């Protein structure tokens, strides 16, 4: 399942009444392939609400159904260690740890696993970018254009800070020399190198 197909799809309650549109999905980086823990819905009246994953009954690209709605759902606020997939990952620049290059996320890959939605990886194909712009169909993805979540590092300020704190983060697998090669291209990421030197092995 692709994140870009889910974002902005309608969110309904059990009586098929429209609540709003899906704005984002939240993950916390507690595993190499973390599960979605909450959904963010932009209500038609304008406010933004957060629903925990347990309230989600069904997820399809045609729409999302919520099984139970709290009479007072929480106004959305991002927790300190929370990553928003559309806001912080989609279209963000990342370091591809295996390919040792800096690329941009064209789409986020999610898989359904025992009633949960798991963050699998990202797609970096230029064809996907064109498809999202409305120019062309989605094509079959080549292996070279897929990066497993465990093999990437977010370069945005927030993404970098959050990911660095997880020992599961792929960036910790890079040797100092490999990191130095990336840092040469993007000297701004010297922070990553020095953090790597300080991080637990």
């Amino acid at each position, binding site marked *: 399942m692709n994140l870009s197909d889910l974002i902005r799809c309608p969110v309904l309650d059990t009586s098929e009444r429209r609540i709003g549109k899906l704005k984002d999905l939240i993950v916390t980086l507690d595993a190499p392939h973390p599960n979605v823990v909450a959904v963010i819905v932009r209500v038609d009246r304008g406010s933004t609400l957060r629903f925990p994953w347990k309230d989600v009954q069904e997820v399809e690209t045609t729409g999302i159904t919520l099984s139970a709605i709290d009479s007072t759902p929480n106004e959305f606020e991002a927790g300190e260690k929370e990553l928003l997939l559309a806001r912080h990952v989609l279209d963000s620049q990342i370091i591809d740890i295996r390919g040792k290059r800096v690329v941009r996320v064209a789409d986020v890959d999610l898989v359904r696993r025992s009633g949960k939605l798991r963050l699998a990886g990202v797609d970096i194909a230029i064809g996907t970018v064109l498809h999202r712009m409305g120019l062309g169909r989605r094509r079959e993805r080549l292996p070279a254009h897929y990066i497993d979540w465990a093999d990437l590092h977010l370069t945005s300020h927030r993404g970098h800070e959050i990911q660095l704190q997880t020992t599961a983060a792929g960036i910790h697998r890079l040797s100092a020399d490999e990191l130095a090669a990336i840092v040469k291209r993007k000297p*701004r990421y010297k922070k990553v190198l020095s953090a790597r030197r300080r991080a637990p092995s």
Partner: protein
Amino acid sequence: MRRRKTKGGARRRRRAGFIALAAVVGPGVLAGLSDDDPAGITTYSILGAKYGYTLLWVLLLSVGALIIFHELCARMGIVTGQGLAGLVRERYGVRLAAGGLFILIIANIGTTCAEFAGVAAALGLAGVSKYISVPIAAVGISLLVLKGSFHRIERVLLLLSGVFVAYIISGFLAGPDWAAAAKGLFVPTLPLTREAILVATATVGTTLAPWGLAFIQSYAVDKRLQPKDLRYERIDVIVGAVMTGVIGFFIVVACAATLHESGSSINDASDAAAALKPLAGNLSAALFGAGLLGAALLAASILPLSTAYSVGEVFGYETELDDSVREAPLFYGTYAAIVVISVIIVLIPGIPLIPILFLTQALNAILLLPLLLFIYGISRDPDIMGEYANKGKVAILSMIAIALIGVCVMALAVVSLI
């Protein structure tokens, strides 16, 4: 003994400061100087010829806005290591980034046409046909970008921009009314006519050009500047913007002192240069022409570069000037396409270049608004900028600048539709 040590220490620190500044200088100065391109020169000349010294305050405010937004863009480039178009995609998504890129490409092709038109006009003053001067200029600057290494390109472009001192000399030779100039600079007056508002809007659009914003950010990234260089980069930006303002000021003043006084009108930059001849002598006109040519070549090399950077960023292919053609086909392909399309348009027999020149500057001003809003939004985002996010006085000033430009564009829309 202790006193001598302290003196030596202070001198060493000053020298280290200058060396650090010299290493960083480039993006701000280049972006600032390239604002005085043929479109800018024509716009400033019209400003001076039609309205004398009275609209100099528009130039002053535009330069103020230039400092604010060039600093923000350079800061974003240094902190994130990404170009403007890439950050727009990161923060606002693929669709908005694509829309912005499309309009940017159209405006950039238009302005590149104006640069080659400037080359044609400048060398036309010396009797060279545009069918010779324009292709040679296009090939020359393309080779410079394609074959030269980053440092060589930067050095040559900075050297080219030294020709701009010609405008300052030209301005003094014209013998202006300095008191009137000072008044025009600090006392805002604006006749509420369509023409005046159009000229004011075009002045904003040519000084605070969209491509300049994207360029300064990409160049800061390409130069691998880091947060520790921020202080020196700010100086570089201010110096570049002030140079734009000073050169623009002398163009306005020169035309105000000669063409406005004699009631002559100008239709393009070469008219301005030719018109200065009987009033201020052969030297003035020749210097003006030389400055025009230098400005045209400088901007003609930067514009396609800026566009190529932006295209690559939106599609996720970030490139650097040091990459070879084989490593970065999209980058060099975009560069070549912009140059070729612009040259073809300029060489169309009988094409009216003045409407292109002026229209693209007005389009620049209109395009500026969404772009400045993007810049404001991205620079304020702590998720992207961390501790370097735009806040406090600069944030307020940038909002005020956007509001003023919005008023300008709206006024233009209103008077155009009446």
